[in-house]
């Protein structure tokens, strides 16, 4: 009965993730590293995302109104101050930005119906069936990586026979629901199920996201942070990034950082600083 459950488990119900961890899946915590020095801004990852996740092409009209549905967008910043006199002397600054799968996600707290919540393997999930489209999550997302279905895209975006390309593993979202990068959860689930039937943990490199898979420069590394030997865990460790920290104490010459860490969102994506030869 619920009341007895409440009283019996009171102390465990008061534990906060990630810093007082309780509900953590011991085996999995998905995370990512993006090397901005390797990223060339070529858009291979974004197209891969469109192909894998059934993202609708919204068309010129909707795009001009800011209604694009790119879960993964490549931002291009110009330098400021000393980095930009008359010309962008040190090139453009590209930033692939997708859902950071925050461990303490601002979006999760404010969703009225709990359509977005945290999974035990560390994803910030979005339950389309539950979403009523209040868009509060998007309003509260510091990264603005949530995309709302302003139109009934299933009727608009895939004229016959384009709909045959749709990935059957991924829901096609109707109008009125929010969506965002899922770290290709359909791939993760499949890999986890496969590993579970074989009685093991998903091996490093066994599963990856569509963006990481496509990236011609391998700038994106994806993997399981709970597995100490995984590529991602090793990079995080070498970069001295701790998941449950809002201010990393790390060596100065390490490139790893997380965006808006000071907001205590505890993102799961580490970016490695772009490197430029200052003598060139």
């Amino acid at each position, binding site marked *: 009965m619920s009341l007895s459950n409440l009283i019996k488990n009171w102390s465990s119900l008061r534990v906060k993730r990630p810093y007082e961890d309780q509900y953590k899946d011991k085996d999995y915590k998905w995370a990512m590293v993006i090397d*901005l020095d*390797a990223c*060339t*801004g*070529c858009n*291979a990852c974004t*197209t891969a995302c*469109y192909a*894998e996740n059934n993202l609708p*092409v*919204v*068309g*010129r009209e909707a*795009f*001009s109104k800011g209604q*694009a549905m*790119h879960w993964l*967008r490549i*931002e*291009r910043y*110009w330098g*400021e101050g000393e980095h*930009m006199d*008359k*010309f*962008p002397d*040190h*090139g*453009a*600054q*590209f930033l692939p930005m997708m859902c950071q799968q925050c461990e303490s996600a601002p979006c999760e707290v404010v969703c009225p119906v709990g359509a977005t919540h945290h999974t035990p393997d560390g994803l910030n999930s979005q339950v389309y069936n539950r979403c009523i489209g209040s868009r509060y999550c998007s309003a509260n997302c510091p990264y603005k990586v949530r995309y709302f279905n302003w139109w009934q895209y299933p009727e608009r975006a895939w*004229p016959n*026979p*384009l709909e*045959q*390309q749709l990935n059957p593993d991924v829901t096609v979202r109707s109008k009125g629901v929010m969506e965002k990068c899922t770290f290709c959860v359909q791939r993760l689930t499949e890999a986890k199920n496969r590993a579970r039937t074989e009685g093991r943990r998903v091996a490093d490199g066994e599963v990856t996201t569509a963006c990481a*898979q*496509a990236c*011609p*420069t*391998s*700038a994106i*590394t994806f993997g399981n942070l709970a597995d100490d030997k995984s*590529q991602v865990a*090793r*990079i995080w460790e*070498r970069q001295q990034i701790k998941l449950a920290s809002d201010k990393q104490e790390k060596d100065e*010459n*390490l*490139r790893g*950082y997380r965006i808006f860490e000071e907001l205590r969102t505890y993102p799961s994506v580490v*970016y*490695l600083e*772009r*490197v*430029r*030869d*200052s*003598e*060139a």
Partner: protein
Amino acid sequence: MSSSNIDRRDFLRVLGISGAAATLAGCGNTSIESGAELVESYVQPEDFVVPGVGVYYASTCTQCGSGCGIMGRVREGRILKLEGNPQSLISGGKICGLGQAGVQVHYNPDRLTTPMIREAGAFKPVSWDKAMATLTARLGSSSTLSGDQIAVLTGEISGHQKVLLGHFLESFKSANHIVYDALSPAIGQAANKAVLGVEQPVLQIDKARLILSFGNDFLGTGPSPVHMAAQYARFRKAPRGTLIQIEPRMTLTGANADRWYAIKPGTEGVFALGIAHSLLQHQEYAHAVPAEIAEALKQYDKDTVSEVTGIHADAISHIAGMLWEKSPSLVLSGPSAEGHVHGFNNAAAILLLNLVLENRGKTLQGQASHPFPQLTPASGSTTALAKLNQAMSAGQCQALLVMGANPVFTAPTFVPFASNLAKVPFKVAFATQLDETAHQCDLVLPLLSPMEDFGTHVAGYQPSGVELAIQQPLMERLYPETRGLGDILLDLLKQRQPEAYKAFPDYYAYIKTAVTKAKPVFKSKSSDDDFWEDALRNGVLRLEAPPAALEAHAATVKVGKPQALETDVNFPFFFVPSVRADLRDGRHANLPWLQESPDPLTTVVWDSWVEIHPTTAAQMQIREGDILEVQSATGSVRAKAYLFPGIQPDTVSMPLGQGHTGYGRYADGMGVNPFKIFDPMYDERTGELALYATRVIIKKTGEHARVVKDEGATNLQQGRKLVATMAADQAELAKEISRVTQ
């Protein structure tokens, strides 16, 4: 390819039967249980088709000429997604956006589904029998055409399609295979040939410690972008290489440079020679060039060079110093340096630097010789089109077959291709989708998409050894009334030379025979069938071969007086077209993913725009979104202004590829076509069209519209730490863990 097209109704029927069987089983012994009857599924899934499980098949990407190996994810008989094939050295298991969009060629809603014949000015769908009858009436056994009366116009083409085309033309005693590439690298290739002895050397980007690139966009639109991006990633790992890019308008590669210089268009050769001059002051380089060149180079002192090129004089000695310091280096020339009246000279001057710096054999190598030269690609040029245009104009051409080229769209206005095309009495287009050129043809034959057809491809750029890439169908054909190019050619050849081709019932048989015949070259000991199966499974046949040596002909580099650019009062701006890595010359504008994929540098989608430097825009009081008229001597186009800091201030730039008028719902009406305002300027040496030599004037129209782009109201980080940058001497890259270096 074993695939079955389970449609949903069939699938439900299977479920229905097994459900019924389960019900019956509950009621005692049925005829099935007693073994008197057997239940058989309505649908027999073919091998490897398991409902709900994705299967991967290897194939080859045909979106550009790089010949990347790809894997297609197939589920329930449908191709869903393309990924890189790790077996292919070219793709290395990776894939670019353009390649991914290949599935949209296949599933494009505007695809041709039946043959069409022009009757009374309009296309009418006809049956294949009728279409083939029309075709063979002109080009079949009874055809009297020969020699120059027939021509085949294609884009870059390689492998057995190319061979069959050649045979087809031979049967007419013709060699009129015109390979047209609107963005042809022919000038650069000619310079390579002249200076290094090969048309396309292999670049060892990862081995270089410094790359000096004059407008070479190897990351975006180069000969093999995916392969070079992987090399670039290794180049950036410890010991980290430095990239310096010099170009009038920033390319994707320029955007990734450590240092980017804006140069006046066409003065790249002067700048290169200025560096050469500076380098020659080091004793060790002194012997690298003939004495007369060394003498001529003395005119290229840094102040003169600086004045001509618009780059600060200190930069020259600085770059020279870095080249001297960081060896081996790699100096590259690119389209924006080559597309000028003196483009060949520019390219040669740039290549001279490689000779001075002794990069031959270190970062520059020759391609391994190919065992099947007949399969190697015929690379395209614009001169070929000019020749065809003349022939058509003179009424010599009686029949024209077009595939993979769209000159009605890409030919400049001074090449009146469309009107000359009308003079050809019989024009046949082979296409998956109608484009502007196909619209002008008399007969249109719908081709299988690359996801439905067999083929072999040989990339023009072979990074190491030799690869023969195999293309196989990834699913059954979508439309029964479509056919492969190989099959059509084979049918035609059977009409003309029945004896030679009777052994091949179809193109599949032809290609299988041809590939298995090559077995000894690949030193395979397996049976023919196994060899073929392996080839299909791997998607690529690899042959390791040593790189060829490069020659050095420094003397061919002409070093004249450094000449400043003439100014044209009527057309004060240089016009630099930009080539988008996804749309290229416009052939991919029909793919919605690519249209919606923001241009990496401006983030504009679905449109054309005019890039103009903010200082110039401020002088002219131009704001973003103002509609500008860009007028050259031959024509004008209108597009929205986009303020772009990565451009030389006397230059404006527009992207190519948009402005279609007959290429389906995703391409039509999007932007404008700058091909139509090119000036008739040609490279002196090769006669190629000089794409970067146009001069324009900009007029404000007073109209304004919102630029459709992903970028928001700011393109700065506004004090946030979004993209952080670290100085190279600070970062300890060697201690880092990385996937690339492993």
